[in-house]
């Protein structure tokens, strides 16, 4: 059997179980899946949702009751929930690269599950768990244990945790199954587990679920701070908060359950105590606790009263027990005889509970249960009835609540608490997701939601306050109720006591008074009853003798004799008119009444004439006990107040308390002692007497109801006079009794069943609870204060943040500005200590450029001191200069050398000053060091340059922009004869020789003012008037803006050179002329003879003259070539450049040569001309000359084969090649090819008449065109000469 503890906690176990899996689902579903894992996470989430829901349904089944339909629903959900778990495992293993069966595997698995149904529903359950649950749990566990934590932050242990959790879960949920009729479910099942371990398997499953959820949380939900290497607070806070909530929730749920439990017990106990209180020990003593009791009026009365009360109060079983011998036997009870729970009086209680025995010993009221006995499982309460004389417990009154009903009430209370826990869990998760959501927003949106914590605090604070207020109020009200019940019990106790004493002492005493006397005189009656009237609650005391008909007159006369002369027996007709009663067997006239005054009219009234009274009279006479009438309206009463009349029979010579087995013989009946009780008055008086009416929680009023079996309760009286209308509303009576707020106390009296109902004073129990208001107030203030302080902290943080941001920005911009200033200073700014190292406190980054070492090296001499990089020869200079400045308190300027990290010497310029603080103590040196190496170099260069200019053999003159001389070098002075002083400030035109035209000067100025160099020659005049030739180069000097500031003229005296040139030209021209003229005469002379102009010549003559002519021609060509070469060499050759088509040139030359080629050697001359060649600038005649040379050469060295001239488009040039199939050129001879007078072969080719200048001239012509010419050859295989002419290059 499941223990009481676990039985009670199963709802909470299911709650936690469900919440864990739902959270598992939510965590997996809600977050982005880790990129490192390819597991099919969503399947696991679905399992979490479905199975979590299933467990909650289990919880509801446990709490609120189960049904077969609901069982089916849960079974199906469970089975379905396992499918995604299996799929997770299957697909997960697949993702991990393990070969797994396809999805067809579900067919056998589901079929296997279905097989379980052969053993019924629990068999199906077991089947599902075996086939799906076990498989799924195991696979999921293995998947997790195999999944390596690839993400850097994913802790290995969380994967292990979830892995082991699922592995164990597979066993706990898949192997431990509901008991079913097949192996192994018939052996290994939930019950077996419970028997062995003592706790239900669901606890183990819930623990697995919690572990799995925790593992999932740490895989997914953690916030890992990479910078700090720790988890953010949420990572731990959430599991911690949930754990705290669930533990606190466990406590709260149990507390609420216990409160509900206790309330039920208290109520039951209270009712039993109240019943016990109102039972007369006299009656009990009359019981025999045997079957005979069924006819015993005491038994019957008690039983009837119990039934009536039980019905009215919804107590199904009020029973009683007594000890007889070694047994507990049952006495009167409210249970109908037909009920299986009914026991005849005297029935032995077979399985009494120990508490029952205990109660008989101690006599204390008790509650017990839920405990099972032969009648079922109940929660029972008991309270003893004692014999006031002996103090012994003569009866134990008991009442039961069915355990199921009892448990249901408790469980409902727990469920309510569970919901509140769920709300707290939701609030935690909601808060977290709100905060998490905010973290994902942009900074601006986050700023808008900056105060979300405040609102959350307010919400949580209000919820907490409301809860606190509710619980405090609940506690307080329960306390008030307890006080109220105490007071009400005391109050009703007074009333009960008043009735008991009226019955036992007052009425009983009167009865005994009559019983003990043969004849009671009126005066005697007055003497006996008179004092009691003044102290008692009884309205009137009466003596009602039984007067047989035959004694009527005699009786009346007897009364007359006692001074009541008007006495006559009467009755009232329907109209209330007194009439003489008809003839009867017995009359029951009121013979005496006290108080007499005001009641005179009642004397003689035949009480038996009225049916209600008569029925009570008869019952009283029959059972021999005091018996009350139904409520009656007194004949003489005003206001129609209800009263009862209680009759106590008095028998002739029969002792009153003789026993129950008296054969009531009406003949022996002497009469009735009777009291009239106005119940309303009585209640009022009693309450007034008890003095608690005014107490804060005291009863507002007391209502008296009469209860009858199978009838609605009847209102009789109220302690409040203005409440009389209540009797009209029967429903209200029912409500009054059923209302648990009211206190109901039974009053078994005079053979009737009454209930005293006390209402709490309006606004007492449910009055506002000061402490809860106080706590509510405190709670709101605390919430407000917390929210406010949070708000101000957040807004302060925001302000500080903004301020920090602003300051940071400011600082940054300042730093930037300062940094910009410092870095823009053309030097390293420093602050150093005046020590031998020049220890740097600060030095700007420029030092890195200057020294090649990083700044950090120098700060505090970390790597090297500044002193260490000063060039050794300059150390002393630097030190001396600075110390000198310090002593004079002046700034200092030094130029010295340092050694750059590259080892090179750098010149630096340093300017600084010593800083003194306070009392004139030297604090540090501030200054700036800049690199002046370039300047030093420039200075050096300038010095060299100026020396060069000074010593230059050329004249150098520098003028300003207007042409005024600013500088002239010594050569100028030497050449012109002007002194420097005379020249400076003058215009160079003082040198003008006067031969140059104005146009010439204008062109000069245009050239140099346009920024170009002008070159040219002047004929100038010296100071002494002597003329001289100058070659000048004049160029403008520009400043860095490109503006011309000066002109520099570099001039050379070329007078001598000019003279020489002229001589040379004259010489060349003369030589040319002098050579050609005789040649012309020779040639013409030979020609005239040779061509027959001068007459016939012989063939021999012709042959030798031909020889002479060839050599004359050759001499002429040689002279031409020499002169050409000379002109080209000296630059005197003039070119005529036009855009020409190279192909047309080639064709022309080809036509010219074709004849010669064919005529001389029978060679082929081929042309391979490129198409679409651009026209390019060249001198047609010169290029013809080149081509002619090349082709002539080719012919010269080729004996057979062909000559091919090719033209093509090259790289920005037109390329021409002349290829022959001749003897070729040795490779080592190629470089010599274009030299002067180069004849590579000797002998035979001399006859060809080459001058040896052709290629040299060709080279010069091609190069003049900025082209290039070269030869390619393989000896013996011919030669190719190529040249190209650039496109678009023009030489002016």
């Amino acid at each position: 059997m499941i223990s009481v503890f676990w039985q009670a906690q199963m709802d909470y176990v299911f709650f936690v179980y469900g919440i864990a899996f739902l959270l598992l689902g939510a965590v997996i579903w809600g977050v982005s899946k880790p990129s490192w894992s390819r597991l099919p996470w969503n399947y696991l989430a679905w399992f979490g949702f479905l199975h979590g829901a299933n467990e909650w349904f289990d919880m509801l089944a446990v709490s609120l009751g189960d049904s077969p339909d609901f069982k089916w629903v849960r079974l199906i959900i469970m089975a379905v929930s396992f499918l995604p778990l299996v799929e997770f495992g299957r697909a997960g293993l697949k993702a991990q690269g393990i070969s797994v069966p396809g999805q067809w595997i579900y067919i056998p698995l589901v079929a296997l599950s279905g097989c379980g149904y052969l053993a019924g529903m629990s068999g199906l359950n077991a089947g599902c768990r075996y086939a799906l649950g076990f498989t799924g749990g195991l696979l999921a566990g293995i998947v997790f244990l195999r999944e390596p934590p690839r993400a850097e932050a994913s802790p290995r242990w969380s994967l292990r945790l979830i892995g082991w959790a699922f592995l164990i879960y597979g066993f706990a949920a898949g192997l431990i199954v509901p008991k079913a009729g097949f192996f192994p479910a018939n052996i290994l099942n939930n019950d077996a587990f419970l028997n062995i371990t003592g706790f239900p398997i669901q606890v183990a499953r819930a623990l697995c679920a919690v572990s799995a959820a925790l593992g999932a949380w740490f895989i997914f939900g953690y916030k890992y701070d990479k910078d700090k290497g720790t988890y953010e607070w949420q990572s731990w806070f959430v599991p911690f908060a949930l754990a705290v909530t669930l533990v606190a929730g466990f406590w709260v749920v149990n507390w609420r359950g216990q409160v509900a439990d206790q309330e039920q017990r208290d109520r039951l106990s209270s009712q039993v105590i109240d019943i016990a209180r109102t039972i007369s020990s006299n009656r009990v003593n009359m019981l025999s606790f045997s079957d005979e009791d069924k006819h015993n009026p005491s038994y019957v009365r008690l039983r009837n009263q119990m039934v009536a009360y039980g019905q009215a109060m919804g107590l199904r079983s009020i029973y009683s027990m007594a000890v007889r011998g070694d047994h507990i036997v049952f006495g009167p009870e409210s249970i109908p005889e037909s009920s299986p729970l009914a026991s005849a009086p005297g029935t032995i209680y077979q399985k009494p509970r120990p508490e029952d025995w205990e109660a008989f010993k101690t006599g204390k009221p008790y509650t017990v249960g839920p405990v099972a006995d032969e009648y079922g499982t109940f929660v029972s309460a008991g309270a003893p009835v004692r014999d006031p004389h002996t103090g012994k417990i003569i009866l134990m009154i008991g009442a039961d609540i069915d355990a199921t009903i009892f448990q249901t009430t408790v469980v409902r209370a727990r469920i309510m608490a569970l919901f509140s826990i769920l709300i707290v869990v939701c609030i935690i998760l909601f808060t977290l997701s709100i905060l998490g959501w905010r973290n994902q927003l942009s900074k601006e949106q986050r700023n808008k939601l900056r105060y979300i914590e405040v609102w959350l605090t307010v919400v949580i604070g209000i919820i907490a306050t409301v809860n606190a207020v509710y619980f405090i109020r609940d506690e307080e009200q329960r306390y008030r109720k307890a006080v109220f019940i105490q007071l009400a019990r005391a109050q009703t106790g007074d009333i009960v006591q008043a009735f008991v004493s009226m019955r036992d002492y007052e009425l009983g005493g009167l009865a005994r008074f009559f019983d003990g006397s043969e004849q009671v005189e009126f005066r005697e009656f007055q003497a006996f009853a008179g004092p009691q009237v003044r102290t008692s609650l009884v309205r009137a005391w009466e003596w009602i003798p039984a007067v047989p008909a035959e004694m009527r007159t005699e009786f009346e006369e007897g009364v007359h004799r006692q001074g009541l002369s008007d006495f006559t027996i009467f009755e009232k007709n329907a109209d209330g008119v007194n009439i003489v009663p008809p003839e009867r067997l017995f009359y029951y006239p009121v013979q005496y009444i006290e108080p007499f005054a005001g009641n005179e009219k009642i004397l003689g009234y035949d009480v038996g004439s009225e049916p209600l009274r008569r029925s009570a009279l008869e019952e009283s006479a029959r059972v021999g006990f005091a018996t009350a009438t139904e409520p009656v309206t007194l004949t003489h009463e005003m206001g129609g107040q209800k009263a009862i009349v209680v009759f106590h029979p008095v028998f002739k010579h029969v002792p009153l308390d003789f026993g129950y087995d008296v054969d009531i013989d009406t003949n022996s009946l002497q009469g009735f002692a009777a009291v009239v009780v106005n119940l309303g008055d009585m209640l009022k008086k009693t309450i007034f007497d008890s003095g608690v009416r005014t107490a804060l929680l005291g009863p507002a009023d007391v209502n008296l109801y009469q209860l009858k079996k199978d009838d609605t309760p009847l209102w009789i009286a109220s302690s409040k006079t203005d409440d009389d209308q209540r009797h009209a509303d029967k429903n209200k009576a029912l409500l009054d009794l059923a209302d648990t707020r009211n206190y109901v106390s039974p009053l078994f009296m005079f053979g009737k069943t009454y209930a005293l109902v006390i209402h709490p004073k309006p606004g007492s129990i449910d009055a506002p609870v000061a402490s809860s208001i106080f706590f509510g107030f405190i709670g709101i203030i605390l919430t407000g204060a917390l929210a406010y302080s949070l708000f101000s902290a957040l807004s302060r943080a925001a302000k500080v943040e903004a301020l920090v941001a602003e300051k940071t920005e400011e600082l940054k911009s300042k730093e930037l500005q300062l940094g910009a200033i410092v870095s823009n200073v053309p030097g390293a700014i420093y602050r150093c200590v005046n020590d031998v190292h020049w220890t740097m406190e600060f030095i700007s980054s420029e030092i890195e450029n200057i020294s090649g070492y990083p700044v950090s090296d120098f700060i505090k001499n970390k790597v090297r001191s500044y002193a260490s990089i000063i060039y050794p020869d300059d150390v002393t200079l630097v030190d001396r200069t600075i110390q000198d400045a310090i002593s004079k308190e002046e700034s200092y300027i030094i130029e010295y050398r340092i050694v750059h990290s590259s080892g090179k010497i750098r010149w630096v310029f340093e300017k600084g000053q010593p800083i003194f603080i306070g009392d004139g103590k030297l604090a540090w040196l501030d200054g700036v060091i800049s690199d002046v190496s370039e300047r030093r170099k420039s200075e050096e260069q300038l010095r060299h340059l100026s020396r060069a200019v000074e010593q230059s053999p050329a004249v150098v003159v520098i003028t300003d922009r207007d042409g005024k001389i600013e500088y002239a070098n010594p050569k100028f002075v030497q050449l012109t004869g002007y002194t420097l002083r005379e020249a400076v400030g003058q215009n160079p035109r003082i040198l003008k020789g006067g031969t140059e035209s104005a146009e010439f000067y204008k062109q000069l100025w245009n050239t140099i003012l346009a920024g170009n160099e002008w070159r040219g020659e002047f004929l100038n005049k010296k100071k002494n008037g002597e003329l001289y030739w100058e070659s000048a180069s004049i160029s403008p000097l520009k400043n860095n803006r490109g503006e011309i500031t000066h002109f520099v003229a570099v001039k050379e005296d070329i007078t001598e050179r000019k003279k020489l040139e002229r001589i040379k030209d004259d010489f060349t021209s003369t030589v040319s002329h002098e050579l050609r003229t005789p040649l012309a005469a020779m040639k013409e002379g030979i020609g005239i003879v040779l061509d027959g102009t001068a007459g016939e010549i012989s063939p021999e003559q012709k042959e030798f003259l031909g020889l002479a002519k060839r050599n004359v021609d050759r001499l002429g060509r040689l002279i031409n070539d020499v002169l050409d070469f000379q002109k080209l060499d000296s630059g005197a050759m003039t070119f005529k450049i036009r855009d020409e088509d190279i192909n047309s040139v080639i064709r022309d030359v080809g036509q010219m040569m074709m004849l010669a080629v064919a005529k001389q050697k029978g060679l082929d001359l081929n042309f391979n001309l490129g198409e679409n060649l651009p026209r390019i600038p060249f001198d047609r005649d010169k290029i013809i000359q080149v081509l002619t040379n090349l082709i002539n050469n080719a012919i010269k060295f080729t004996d057979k084969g062909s000559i091919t001239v090719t033209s093509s488009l090259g790289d920005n040039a037109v390329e021409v090649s002349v290829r022959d199939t001749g003897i070729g050129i040795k490779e080592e001879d190629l470089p010599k090819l274009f030299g002067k007078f180069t004849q590579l072969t000797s002998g035979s080719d001399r006859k060809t008449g080459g001058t040896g200048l052709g290629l040299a001239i060709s080279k010069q012509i091609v190069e003049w065109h900025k082209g290039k010419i070269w030869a390619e050859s393989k000896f013996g295989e011919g030669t190719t000469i190529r040249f190209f002419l650039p496109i678009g290059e023009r030489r002016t």
Partner: protein
Amino acid sequence: MAKKILFVDDESDVSAVVTFRLKKAGYEVINAVNGQEALDLAGKVNPDLILLDLRLPIISGEEVCERVKSDERLKNIPVILFTASVDNMEDKVKRTGADDFITKPFDPEQLMQKIKKLIG
């Protein structure tokens, strides 16, 4: 009637062979040996063409040509410069107003062609 060519050259050898060839070709040749004589003869004989060496004693060939070309009576006489110089002859032709030039040593056919071209 044979056309008259005034051939001016101070080199008698050259003069002899050229005169021989011109005469053989059917021209009447009048020889001058210096610039002055050339100018005098040009005025006197009114030649159809002047074949003028540039390098002449007394007055240079260039000057002779310039004077001929600036003389109203003589300027229509075609002048062929006949020289051993290789200086830029086109320039010289242009400057002096001559009609053509031929350099020594000369190609007799070329000479004849040029003469023919000018006077037929």
